[in-house]
């Protein structure tokens, strides 16, 4: 049973042999004592939330000093926020596998935060049971990232979820444990299907949006067929590939855009959609009954499932 020490200074003193090399390394990169003290003081509430257990707190101290040395310990820094607020929210995970969870969450958080999905991702991870083995930590975080909306990780996450213990995967995917295999297989075949989602005609996903409302675009986008995913968006002088599934969407800029041909303009009144607008183009995707639709007065593209012919 580890001795519980309260307060970061006491913790550092008690484990000086472990912490001193980290401090010396940080000093080598220009970190002075005052900066190190201030950063470790910042860490106080997070360590307290994790009960001050040295085995749990020391990886946080290590991460803090490392971020400080890299110049990433400032108010606007995502990793600092992860150490101070996210890791305490994932207390059960951190307590179970501190040496694995702390670096993995820190490494993944920047990418997830860039997509604006950090909170959703952390909530999903926090709701899930802790993996039974430390080797399952990273696959679990990957599955949670995809399930939270990072669609570009879809294929890797489907493989990772299939390899995870059913209980862990079920908690992350929010499906019954007995159905994990079936759900993964069916979803792999049809990216627009998910248990509990309406699989009738209608809008199944939205892509992009106006920059003023947090979207990526200033101009109204147009759609075209082609590129690595079959769906292209032409907007703001750029061409991007649209990647989407039932959980999320993303646009990947293409440096060498393929030639784009204006797609047909279906009658909007025949589309099962909740708006009246002129459609500028609709491109079928992997399934002929799922279209990527652009319209005259919207900066957002809609993925629309039409009634089967």
């Amino acid at each position, binding site marked *: 049973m580890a001795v519980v020490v309260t307060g970061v200074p006491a913790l550092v003193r008690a484990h000086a042999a472990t912490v001193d090399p980290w401090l010396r390394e940080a000093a080598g990169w220009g970190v002075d004592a005052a900066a190190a003290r201030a950063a470790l003081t910042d860490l106080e509430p997070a360590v307290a939330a994790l009960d001050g257990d040295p085995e749990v707190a020391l990886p946080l101290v290590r991460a803090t000093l490392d971020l400080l040395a890299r110049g990433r310990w400032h108010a606007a820094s995502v990793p600092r926020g992860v150490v101070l607020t996210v890791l305490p929210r994932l207390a059960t995970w951190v307590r179970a596998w501190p040496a694995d969870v702390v670096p993995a969450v820190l490494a993944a958080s920047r990418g997830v935060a860039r997509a604006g999905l950090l909170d959703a991702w952390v909530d999903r991870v926090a709701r899930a049971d802790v993996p039974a083995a430390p080797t399952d930590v990273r696959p679990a975080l*990957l599955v949670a990232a995809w399930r939270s909306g990072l669609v570009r990780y879809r294929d890797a996450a489907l493989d990772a979820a299939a390899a995870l213990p059913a209980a862990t995967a079920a908690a992350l995917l929010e499906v019954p444990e007995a159905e994990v295999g079936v759900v993964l297989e069916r979803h792999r075949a049809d990216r627009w299907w998910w248990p509990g989602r309406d699989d009738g005609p209608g809008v199944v996903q939205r892509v992009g949006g106006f920059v003023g409302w947090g979207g990526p675009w200033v101009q109204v986008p147009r759609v075209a067929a082609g590129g690595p995913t079959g769906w292209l968006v032409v907007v703001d002088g750029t061409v991007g590939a649209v990647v989407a599934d039932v959980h999320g969407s993303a646009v990947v800029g293409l440096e060498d855009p393929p030639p784009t041909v204006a797609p047909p303009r279906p009658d909007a009144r025949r589309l099962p959609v909740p708006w009246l607008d002129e459609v500028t183009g609709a491109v079928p995707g992997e399934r002929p009954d799922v279209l990527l639709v652009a319209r005259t007065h919207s900066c957002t593209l809609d993925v629309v499932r039409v009634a089967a012919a």
Partner: protein
Amino acid sequence: MSEHDLQQVSQAPTRAGAAGTPHVELDAAHLFADEQLPADATAPRLDEKLRQAYFWMVNHAVISPHYDVEFSAPGQARTTYRLGDSRAAVHLPTDQSYSSFVLLPLLTFAVRGRCLLVGGPGRGKTASAILMGVIAGYPVRDVRRAMQHGHPQLTVQDMFGTPLPRDLVNAERLADVDVAWRSWLGMRVKIVDEYNRIPTRTQSALLTVLADGYVEVFDQVYETGASAWYLTANDDAGGGTFQVVDALRDRIDVVVKALAFNSRFLGDLVTRAERGVRPEENVPPGIVFDADEHDRLHREVLAVPLPRPVRRRLEFFAAQLELLERAGSQLEYRTKDTARLAGADPHTLLASDDGRDRRDDIGAQTLNGLSVRALQSLVLYAKAMAYFRGDAQVELDDLRAVLPFVLHDKLQPDLDAPAFDDPEREALRTDRVSWLREIFDTACLQYDAAGLDGDDPVGDVLAELAAGLDGIEEKVVLARLATIERILSGWQRTKLHGDMYDDALALKYAHQRYSSYLRWLRWQSS
């Protein structure tokens, strides 16, 4: 300039759009990319790794906040501000631009070329060369030990190896004398400090290693293999202890100048001194190229295609430089090389050449033309530049960027030429990099003005010939001969420019090939 973490390598992609086909699907390696990838993770593309090495060097190792290798994004003109009485232009490039002092040595590493670093003492020339050795995977100590320091007493044996004394006494034949070769000869990065202080005899031996990759001592031969060479000189304008042998100078692919230190960055120097951290001792493993990667890097650079429009502009530029109408009587000998071999002054002959406008004709600004070796270096470095920038093929900008550094010592300006008399061009007498860039730009403008991309009858003739003569009928040969003669006839009333001179010789070559084939064809059917 961040000095926080010497082990930090810029995140890929370091150049947006240069990562080839974009990753639409991502995986765990991407999600956890903020930290060191596991050993079994997919290795980065070598062009990306090369760019990461460049950015690590400029961010952490060499304080060179210069962007003298400028690029502009297509359709985005650079912004220019003019300062002072001389109207010195401050260009703000619209695409990723680079510092020649760091970039050219790195490209030399990639193509295993020969780079000369020139500049005053204490400008970081040797430090840059040492970094290249470390990037090749050698421990700093080994790189420092392997560095050859030029001095007036340096002998061939000091430099390359010594015969074993025991063998010298006992051997009955030279072949029995074993030579203890110096270990630096086998390294993939070779550094010769202050090469212009090496005595002439040793320079000649060095030339053999540089040019042919082998050393000979006491009839023993050592194959050094392909390697990147870095030579340094405080002053390459004859200020060394010994005059550099012309042949050795000609083997150097690129010349890079250490630019002046920007005093605004003194703080970085102070920080570095206080911390006592040496960049060359803290090179991140992620930017080190092992022998296999180095080989692959070279192969990948060579595989970058050089498209015809770029090649044609280079041909046009090179063609302007060699013609000297009054140097000879026969067409083939009307070149600057003829004048030089005869000991005549090309400037005098150029001055008596009144057929062309000597201010517009770029050939009138040089005392020599380009050697085959210079053109090979130019193509190789243009490919390396394109590779580094992630271009699928060599663009004109890539060629334009490397040209001044490759031709720096290979193209001698005629400083008495009228083209330098213009007050606005006065500075080009001393700024050779800008001069070279300017004459290349002029050549490109002339090429475009002549519309040679769309109308190239000589190119068509050569393309037909390149397709082969097998099975060509007599009437076709006769038609092609008539075409050649018609083109030459059409040029009789125009001034002879360098490109026309090369084209005329090419047409003569084609005419000779067709004539010989026609004779053979008629003999066969008789």
